[in-house]
């Protein structure tokens, strides 16, 4: 044991030696000593030499309280020659920080004078990095946990290798220049400006909010994105959104080049919430305006010539990134419906209303309201409503692939490529119980007339009655996989037996809260507590377009006998009488004032 004790004690001694060695042999001391020696050799007089002689290595630091939180920048501990013009040809860390006219440095009597003095600004306010660190790894922020690595220079271990070349370069520093020089026209920040233009040109503003610049609500708020995220993350989120977050619904903007994305990243990196030049009053004004005006100012409205509406509209649809989501010919963003034959599906009035406010025609649409000008909307409407080429559909299978697959999926299970973006979700044809519980007329009507308030368009100008039936036959054999059975007529009242009255509506509401709110929600918006576990999702009963398009008889059918293949039970089994359902129908009708417009309101 004595031997082990001796070994252990010796080990402790050795470790103390190692620790002491680490403590008293810093790299930065070597850098400083090298600097002193070089400077002594260059010194002009004895006084300067003596002054250098008297200096010994120590931690140099600048404490800056003027920009945001107090910064402690110890960068000049290694970069000790950064303000010594004689070292401009030396290697880092002993290199002079370059002087440049662009940064406002001026030459007086052959000597440069800095506009941004290091003693006033420190280093990290422009460069980022971790000012307190004394080793390159710490100070440059190469440790994967440091939120602000040296902008455009440091690379963290976990960054994706293929993106790294795009994340380096002096342009990234512009993001920090823009913290004080906020004017988009500032000459020193051209890349920020370019990114900002792209932010508008690529329709980012439609989904995202940046205080004072845009007010989209579909995507995350980007007001503080530059403070919250590192450049590699922002880059990856734009370059390949789903690679970062599998549930992201952001489209991949294929028309953006890597350089474009880089400019966007630099612009976004400059969005850090409150910046240094802002006053509280500016901030208040920004919040009050929301930014609509800025959008108009940025996207440079196109002068529309009435004679060339359709052609200009086509150009606009291409330029304004519509195909980032929609399909149009060969271009496909895989988020939103196909516009290739839009003129056959929607009339100009619907298109125009949908452009101005997508939710005015489709209550649960995720399409943002873009801030184009009136004439631009008109031109785009003119172009889209002119797309009237009937596609060649040699067989029902071809028709399914061309028209239905995008939403209903190649397996007919309602999970087509864009289905996750649609609300209500496309019908699942593999649910035989549903398909066989609806009369053929009803199915044909859904195909040819569409379903109001949903993404199902009216195909009647593409499919005639015979083609629609053939298509439904194909669906029956390919997906339903059960022989078609015409349902027996159910015992339904021809009209609502209860006249609408405040009392009836109140009774209906009571029943609704008791029986229906669990799935359809207290507000009737289909978001009840049970709705999370139910597919297809419970119907949004505030969708006035849908509600007003269905007859009382159909509501009675769905409530009394349930909707087969969904979670909607047959309420006649739970004791609801015709009168109870009548009250419910009155309540639902009262909830949804009859909407104006809509392509084929009241046809079903």
């Amino acid at each position, binding site marked *: 044991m004595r031997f082990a*004790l001796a070994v252990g*004690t010796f080990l*402790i001694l050795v470790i*103390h030696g190692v620790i002491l060695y680490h403590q008293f042999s810093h790299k930065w001391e070597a850098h400083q000593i090298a600097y002193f020696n070089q400077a002594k050799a260059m010194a002009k007089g004895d006084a300067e030499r003596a002054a250098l002689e008297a200096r010994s290595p120590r931690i140099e630091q600048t404490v800056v309280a003027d920009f945001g939180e107090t910064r402690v920048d110890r960068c000049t501990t290694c970069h000790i020659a950064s303000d010594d013009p004689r070292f401009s040809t030396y290697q880092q860390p002993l290199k002079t920080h370059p002087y440049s006219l662009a940064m406002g440095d001026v030459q007086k009597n052959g000597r440069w004078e800095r506009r941004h003095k290091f003693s006033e600004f420190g280093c990290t306010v422009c460069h980022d990095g971790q000012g307190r*660190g004394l080793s390159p790894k*710490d100070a440059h922020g190469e440790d994967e946990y440091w939120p602000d690595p040296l902008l455009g220079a440091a690379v963290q271990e976990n960054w994706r290798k293929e993106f790294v070349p795009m994340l380096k370069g002096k342009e990234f520093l512009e993001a920090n220049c823009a913290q004080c020089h906020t004017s988009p026209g500032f000459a020193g920040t051209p890349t920020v400006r370019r990114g900002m233009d792209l932010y508008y040109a690529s329709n980012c503003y439609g989904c995202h909010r940046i205080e004072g610049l845009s007010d989209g609500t579909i995507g995350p708020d980007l007001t503080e994105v530059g403070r*919250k995220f590192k450049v590699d993350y922002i880059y990856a989120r734009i370059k390949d959104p789903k690679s970062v977050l599998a549930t992201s619904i952001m489209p991949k903007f294929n028309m953006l080049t890597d350089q474009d994305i880089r400019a966007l990243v630099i612009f976004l990196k400059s969005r850090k919430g409150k910046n240094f030049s802002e006053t509280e009053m500016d901030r208040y004004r920004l919040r009050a305006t929301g930014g609509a005006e800025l959008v108009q100012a940025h996207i440079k409205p196109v002068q529309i010539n009435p004679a060339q509406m359709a052609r200009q509209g086509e150009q606009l649809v291409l330029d304004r990134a519509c195909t980032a989501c929609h399909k149009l010919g060969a271009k496909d963003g895989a988020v939103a419906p196909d516009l290739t034959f839009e003129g056959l599906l929607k009339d100009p009035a619907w298109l125009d209303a949908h452009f101005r406010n997508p939710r005015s025609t489709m209550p649960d649409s995720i399409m943002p309201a873009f801030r184009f000008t009136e004439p631009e909307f008109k031109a785009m409407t003119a172009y889209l409503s002119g797309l009237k080429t009937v596609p060649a559909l040699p067989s029902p299978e071809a028709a399914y692939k061309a028209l239905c697959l995008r939403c209903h999926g190649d397996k007919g299970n309602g999970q087509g490529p864009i289905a996750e973006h649609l609300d209500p979700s496309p019908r699942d044809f593999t649910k035989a119980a549903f398909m066989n519980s609806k009369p053929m007329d009803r199915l044909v009507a859904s195909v040819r007339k569409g379903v109001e308030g949903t993404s199902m368009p009216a195909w009647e100008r593409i499919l005639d009655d015979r083609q629609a039936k053939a298509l439904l036959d194909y669906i029956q054999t390919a997906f339903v996989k059960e022989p078609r059975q015409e349902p027996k007529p159910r015992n339904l009242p021809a009209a609502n037996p209860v006249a609408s009255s405040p009392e009836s509506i109140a009774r209906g509401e009571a029943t609704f809260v008791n029986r229906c709110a669990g799935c359809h929600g207290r507000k009737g918006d289909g978001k009840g507590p049970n709705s999370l576990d139910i597919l297809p999702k419970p119907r949004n009963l505030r969708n006035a377009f849908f509600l007003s398009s269905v007859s009382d008889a159909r509501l009675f059918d769905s409530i009394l006998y349930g909707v087969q293949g969904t979670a909607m039970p047959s309420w006649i089994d739970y004791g609801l009488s015709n009168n109870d359902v009548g009250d419910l129908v009155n309540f639902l009708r009262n909830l949804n004032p009859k909407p104006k417009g809509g392509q084929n309101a009241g046809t079903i």
Partner: protein
Amino acid sequence: MSKETASPSLLTAVKELPGNVWKSLFRNPLPTNDLERSSTSFTNFFLHIHPVKVHKNTLRPLYTLGLGLVSFFLFVILVVTGILLMFYYVPSTAQAYDRMLDLRGSVAFGTILRNMHRWSAHGMVAVVVMHLCRVFLTGSYKKPREFNWVLGVVLLLLTLLMSFTGYLLPWDQLAFWAITVGTAIAGYAPVVGKDIQFLLMGGSTVGQEALLRFYVLHVAVLPATLTLAIAIHFWRIRKDGGLSRPADADPTPPMEMMGAQAGSKPSLPEGKKTYGLQGLVRGPLTKVNNIPDNTVFSWPNLFMSELFVFVMTLAVILVLALLFNAPLEEPVNVMHPPNPAKAPWYFLGLQEMVSYSAFWGGIGVPGIFVGLLLLAPYLDRSPKGVGVWFSRDRLLANTIFLTFLAANIIFVIIGTFFRGPNWAFVTPW
């Protein structure tokens, strides 16, 4: 008096000053005979907590594994490094993380101090649990050591609390979310859960108030409590007759020499007879005459062993501190929880169980486990199987204990290595 007598004595006094100071500090020379060995243990403040003579069984390395001592020495290392770290730390949400950066980057010996403190803290949790296992598996909690066992369980809980409160102080993402998860587990307790959670955090979320509370708990309340509990724990070891040992470890002394027999009820001291202090001390260490025993002098046997354990503990911690840096993740971002947010590793078993059932995993099962531990000496009254690892007489108790322990370890391992984003099962390779 006169100068002639005073001046030589002053001179001698100066000459003999170092020797005299030394002698006044250490009253005994290095001992050469048994009397001096006894006296050395007896007259030194730090040694007098030990008995003069110690049972040979106590010194068997494979019996105790030195685990109790290791935990104590880790605590000592923690106190020393902790006090040094306190000089640099500010319990404020605005400054705490910057202070961590300073400790890592600029403060002399900052990194090594923080590393030592971190790894000793993790080590102490592990070693205290192992110590508990040793005591249980050797049946050492049995009469007369019941209460010391209870104290030991309390010490384990205090150690966990110490480690848990310290976890928040770096104020990085790891700390913030681990404590958010940990305090949420406390919130699952019935009736008082939410109140305890609120009391711990000083609000409804982890923030400045929580940081201050955790700091005060970590540097004042808990260390003081722990020190007191450790003192009582040590004191009771001696009053309970030293460490446990098998019944046959002591040769049976002749009956007439032992006074009261083992079988008969110990009689209370009666008024007629006077008793010395020795007469009040329990157990077979009360040695009246020169009866045969299995004890050796603490000096040097016990002290050398203790020194050995200390040196090994310190060496291991130093090596760990030199090789591995204590983690420091991003500064706290309240809006951006990591996925998954994990509690400290020793609570990951709880978190794993909480993922099945909030109440049973977070409160029910651990509550039952701790309750059983506390009650173990009062439920298991059989005197058999003391002082031997895995005694056959203790098959049932040991099996139950090891089952609980293994389950917890498995849960900790699953929680640590096999849980990915959204607490989904992942493989670590």
